[in-house]
């Protein structure tokens, strides 16, 4: 693992507490994600499950954050809320300076389209569409003209070194290539955050490293990356690790502190 990861730009605990503590006030523009007291309950056949019990999370622009936790910790729910696929029952969520926790369906669709680039564990590419067309999809919904769409999709595929495979369908690509197509799709509309959900969950360790290198480069070029994972060695690639337990943030620290703890068998 490389040791020269720039730690500059990482937010401090005090800064985060300051920004999450000011309820109802729009955070400064260097904060991409600010959640204040996010709660999310599910009604599971009469029994209420508290998936999130009050999450205060702040992510500054250009941070590379891993969200960890065992299953049932609420990390999937948090990722759905951050990804604007779900809305919280209580609390506020500011994304890129915009209060999105009160938005309705179609407005959330617009936010997902503009601000969020998803990378999923199962890639979630359209099986009958070519790599190029898959990457173009977010631009289709953004209303970009077809010529510009094509050019931007090719550019995005070039960033993940797959321009030569743009006419292939997903089943003609390896797992790592599929995930890189998915990353190109996530980046094509220049989102505020890249949101990855277990991005290496379906890949072997060598390919996982390859994908992690792509994330590393993106982070180095200024892309804000949020990665949800339950594997501590994958989480250790991020510069900051947030651990969730029972719907609350259990710890939120720099990577080196986290690695130390993992090494000590604390996780």
């Amino acid at each position: 693992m490389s040791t020269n990861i720039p730690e500059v730009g990482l937010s401090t605990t005090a800064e985060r507490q300051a920004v999450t503590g000011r309820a109802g006030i729009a955070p400064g523009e260097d904060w991409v994600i600010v959640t204040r007291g996010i709660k999310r309950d599910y009604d599971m056949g009469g029994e209420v499950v508290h998936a999130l019990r009050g999450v205060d999370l702040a992510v500054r622009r250009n941070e590379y954050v891993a969200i960890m936790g065992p299953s049932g910790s609420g990390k999937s729910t948090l990722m759905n809320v951050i990804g604007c696929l779900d809305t919280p029952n209580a609390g506020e969520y500011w994304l890129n300076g915009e209060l999105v926790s009160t938005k309705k369906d179609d407005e959330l669709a617009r936010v997902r389209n503009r601000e969020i680039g998803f990378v999923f564990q199962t890639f979630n590419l359209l099986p009958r569409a070519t790599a190029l067309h898959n990457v173009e999809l977010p631009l289709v919904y953004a209303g970009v003209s077809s010529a510009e769409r094509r050019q931007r999709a090719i550019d995005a595929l070039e960033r993940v070194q797959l321009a030569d495979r743009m006419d292939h369908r997903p089943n003609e690509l390896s797992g790592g290539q599929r995930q890189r197509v998915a990353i190109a799709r996530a980046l094509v509309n220049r989102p505020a955050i890249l949101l990855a959900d277990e991005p290496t969950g379906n890949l072997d360790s060598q390919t996982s490293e390859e994908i992690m290198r792509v994330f590393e480069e993106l982070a180095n070029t200024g892309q804000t990356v949020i990665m949800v994972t339950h594997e501590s060695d994958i989480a250790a690639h991020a510069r900051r690790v947030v651990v969730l337990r029972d719907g609350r943030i259990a710890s939120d620290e720099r990577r080196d502190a986290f690695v130390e703890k993992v090494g000590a068998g604390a996780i």
Partner: protein
Amino acid sequence: MSLFESIRLAIAQIRAQKLKSFFTLLGVTLGVMFLIAVVSIVQGMGNYMEDAFAGKFLGVNTFTVRRFPDFNMGDVTEAEWRSWQRRPYITVADGDAIRAVIPDSTQWSLLDMDWTTPQSRYVNGGPQVLTEAASPSFFAIKNLTVTEGRAFTELEDQLGSPVVVIGTDVADHYFPNLDPIGKELRIEGLPFRVIGLLEKQGSAFGLSLDRQMIAPFHSPMSRFIGHHDRVYGVMVKAQNPAAMTDLQGTVSELMRRRHKLRPEQPNDFVLESSASALTQWEVIKGILVKAGVVLPAIGLVVGAIVIMNIMLVAVAERTREIGIRKSLGARRRDILSQFLVEAATLSTAGAALGIGLGFGLSRAIAALSPLPTSVALWSVIVSVVLGAGVGIAAGLYPASRASRLDPIAALRAE
């Protein structure tokens, strides 16, 4: 997403699942096919009727002055029939009077007709033949062409010469393998000389138009088939439809005067033309066209139900795709329009296929039956509109279900 984009996506989807798409289309295709075919048959029947009446029985731009209508397809009440029987006969004198008031350029013919069984020395017995006694202009009025020999002349009519022009069926039967011209044909025992052979005409309403023969009105023929000075009718042919209206006015006025009708009394004669005979047909045609639209509409309803089902299955199968699209920023209306356009494209394609098959069926019927079917443009337009409409109606519910899917649940679907 633009409409063009949606249609392209829909076509790709249809091409990806050709067989399934075909079965989905089937209902709409069959509905449209029968719509096109039935309308073309009705149209063909109409053309056939008009052609038969106008061209073969009653003549183009021609009317026949008669006691009561001969070609009548409507129901005639008992009272009506009895009142017709009390009407005065049309006479030869009426015919001459009509001839006196119409312009010289107008063609005119007295006409009597009946069925007789002629005899020839070349064959024993034979079929009945429609036997007509008419003026020389009759050939021109009915558009009859004499291919061999000649028609009779004005002089022969005045002299009452026993000459006859026969149809091809008559020639074939009574003069087998012989040239009939100049030969003798006995009608009601009297010898007639065959002077002409009519061009083959085929049949109308199952009646052979070639089994007829025509003799001069003043020949002995009218004594057998007519009743003293009464005639079957007096035929008048105008040069064009406008002139025909004028002529009908003139002749009607004359006949009313001759029958001494007071202004408030209705006509006690008819001026029968193909148009008057076809009024009843128009009513029947209206009913047939309605049936021709309503029955295939049932097929379209079935087609709509099939499309709705297939679309529901498609939505279920493509739940994950919907989830992916939503996660990438597709709004409800994007998903809604995607599935609506897909359903509409599917059923419009079905309609297009149905139009093609309908054309084919119509052609096949025209080739295999005497009906001159013709596809009506309006039925094609109705088909396309119905096709798209059925698709949109059938796609609405599945598409709205797809658009309301929860993206998280949809992404988790297998």
